[in-house]
């Protein structure tokens, strides 16, 4: 079965329409800045990527029960609806279609937990009904249930928390479901909201950059926390082509465990190497066929060094395809990162242009490949690899083919 990506939808700090998302990134724009909540002496770093307006919610105006669900659920519903429209799917006429939602995340509806914690500190008995309501909607299955409820669709679902690899893991599970004939259409993606817990945690780990995210730069100082959501529509290629123009195809996926450390990647990048190798094998292509790699590229000292090392091991020092990281522009949208990178990769293949790694002043010595510094570059873009390496050692790699 050839699996096509027939639709895509984003809710991101770079915009909510695919064309806006592309133009923002193509322009090398940075979508992060000072976050007021953290602009105080308790934090050394104040930079994050936050969706500041609510215009993304406009496409949910006709939907039911939107405000019964948390922000992550609303982001997800908005992005899924955008993906439906892009795939030329009428959600009202999908009654006999077996739909499955596969959703990656890092912390789910964490803003509910954060609100509950704040109210518990206040210790006002009048807040109890709100606390109970938020606690009921806290567990992650509410995100998927919320999508079904808000959009009025009958879909099966799997919430797949896999931290920063959430999107790739969701795509890998979606592929399993399609090939096992458990679904006709899979909507796969990832979502995370900007989280005080995540910001505080990374801050205490000393892994946040105080200014810019500079993947592969000699003087990189860490990551920038962000938020966002993305979904793709996956289905059998011929079925999709009868209805719409496809964006490309998923050829293969490799999902593995580093099994080394909760925070640090394996020093040899073992899990990443095995995931990439498996993705190439299942895609049934050669390493030399890959035209571009969308890196995990967080801008931390260890991730970028190990990622460069793994690429050298896999491709050989002289043969690493051009590799860039759009986290330099979006920040790290956590559970949404890998799906936004997948979507960006498909857009890159359509336009035959590689998006840049911005903020690059001087490449680190360990980076022997073209990391597309600062400006986009044209390239043949038939096959793309997109990688993600998560907390807890869950690593994912997917291979995409242009249309």
């Amino acid at each position: 079965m050839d699996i096509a990506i027939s639709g895509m939808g984003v809710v991101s700090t770079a915009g909510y329409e695919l064309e806006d998302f592309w133009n923002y990134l193509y322009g090398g724009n940075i979508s992060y800045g000072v976050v007021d909540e953290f602009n105080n002496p308790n934090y050394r770093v104040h930079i994050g990527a936050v969706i500041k307006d609510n215009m993304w919610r406009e496409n949910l105006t006709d939907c039911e029960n939107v405000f019964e669900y948390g922000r992550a659920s609303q982001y997800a519903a908005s992005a899924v609806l955008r993906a439906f429209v892009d795939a030329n799917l009428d959600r009202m006429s999908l009654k006999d279609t077996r739909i499955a939602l596969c959703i990656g995340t890092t912390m789910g509806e964490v803003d509910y937990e954060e609100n509950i914690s704040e109210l518990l500190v206040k210790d006002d008995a009048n807040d109890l009904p709100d606390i109970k309501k938020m606690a009921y909607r806290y567990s992650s299955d509410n995100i998927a249930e919320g999508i079904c409820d808000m959009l009025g669709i009958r879909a099966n679902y799997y919430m797949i928390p896999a931290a920063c690899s959430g999107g790739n893991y969701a795509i890998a599970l979606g592929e399993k479901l399609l090939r096992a004939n458990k679904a006709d259409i899979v909507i796969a993606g990832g979502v995370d909201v900007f989280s005080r817990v995540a910001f505080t945690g990374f801050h205490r780990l000393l892994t946040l950059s105080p200014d810019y995210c500079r993947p592969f730069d000699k003087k990189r100082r860490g990551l920038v926390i962000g938020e966002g959501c993305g979904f793709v529509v996956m289905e059998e290629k011929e079925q999709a082509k009868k209805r719409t123009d496809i964006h490309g195809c998923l050829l293969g996926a490799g999902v593995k465990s580093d099994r080394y450390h909760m925070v640090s990647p394996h020093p040899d990048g073992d899990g990443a190497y095995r995931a990439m190798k498996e993705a190439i094998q299942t895609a049934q292509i050669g390493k030399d066929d890959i035209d571009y790699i969308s890196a995990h590229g967080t801008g931390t000292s260890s991730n970028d060094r190990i990622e460069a090392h793994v690429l050298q091991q896999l491709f050989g020092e002289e043969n690493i395809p051009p590799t860039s990281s759009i986290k330099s522009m979006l920040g790290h949208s956590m559970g949404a990162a890998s799906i936004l990178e997948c979507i960006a990769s498909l857009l890159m293949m359509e336009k035959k242009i590689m998006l840049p790694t911005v903020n690059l002043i001087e490449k680190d010595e360990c980076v022997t490949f073209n990391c597309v510094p600062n400006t986009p570059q044209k390239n043949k873009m038939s096959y793309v690899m997109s990688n993600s390496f998560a907390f807890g050692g869950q690593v994912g790699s997917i291979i995409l083919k242009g249309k």
Partner: protein
Amino acid sequence: MYLNIDNVICITSSECYVGKEKSGDHACVIDESYYIYYQGENKSRHFDRISKILLTGMSKLCDKYNLNMEKLKTAGIYLGTQYSSCNSIHTFDSKALNDSPLSVNPIHFPDTVINSPASQLSIEYKMENENFTISNGLNASLDAIGIAYESILSKATEIAIAGGVDEWGKIQSYGTQCKKEVAEAVGLVLLEEVKQDEARQKSYIQIISYVSENVKKDCILSADIISEVLRKQIEENLKDYEQKIEIFVSSLLDETDEKHLFEEAVKKSGFDIELHFNNKIYFGATGVVEVDKIYKKSKLDCSFQILLNLNKSILSCLIISRNPPVS
């Protein structure tokens, strides 16, 4: 479906522990003595409570069945959980709010990702294959077993560790609307492909099928759709057999509503099937606890067991059998 038609996918080992001590507010919790001594290979590593409970469960599974530790390294992990590391997230966040963000211990931050317990499992046991946390509410561990089964069928992995874990806490106590008794639990099973003869000799539990469907119609749970799911699963998988079938139902519904819904569904399906209703909920670990109960029974009255978990609009259905008759 199988590489070799003489092979079947079975649960060959099962370990489960449920909370028995009633906590102040409603739930039965797992006593400290179960997990307090778990230290792991590297004694300096930090584990939060839910990870300790899970790792203790895994340790007991390995010891009890003398599992091949080298082979285990290649196993896929499929862990179901409704709340996962919720308590760790809440503790971390509360500390930051009550004291200051500068006072939180960075060592506790990795506990705050939902995939943390499953990740700890892969690190401790050096398990290098795919590692899925499935956070599907009450259905989580049944879905985890189902996905593990599909993964072995598709050759993504040869063996799988599947199951679930959930703990009680403040957020859970505010958020649980279920009137049934609730308890913490951990349960893990080993799934692998074995020869039919061996499965029979050793009375392994064979997985016959797994499916998961949205059973709401016009925003209401539909007995019609549930009956269709049942009818299709029985006709596709059990039609050659005239053996007794039993259904085990777990849901968050009120007992009366639950009974009414499923009795109506079974009646509409046209089959004569005995229904059992689970009056105790173990959050995301509910399914694996039910599987373990069946696994531990030395003798079963019927040949096929259909486990149904209903979480909000999703019905997950796992059909298993200890000694399916030869067709």
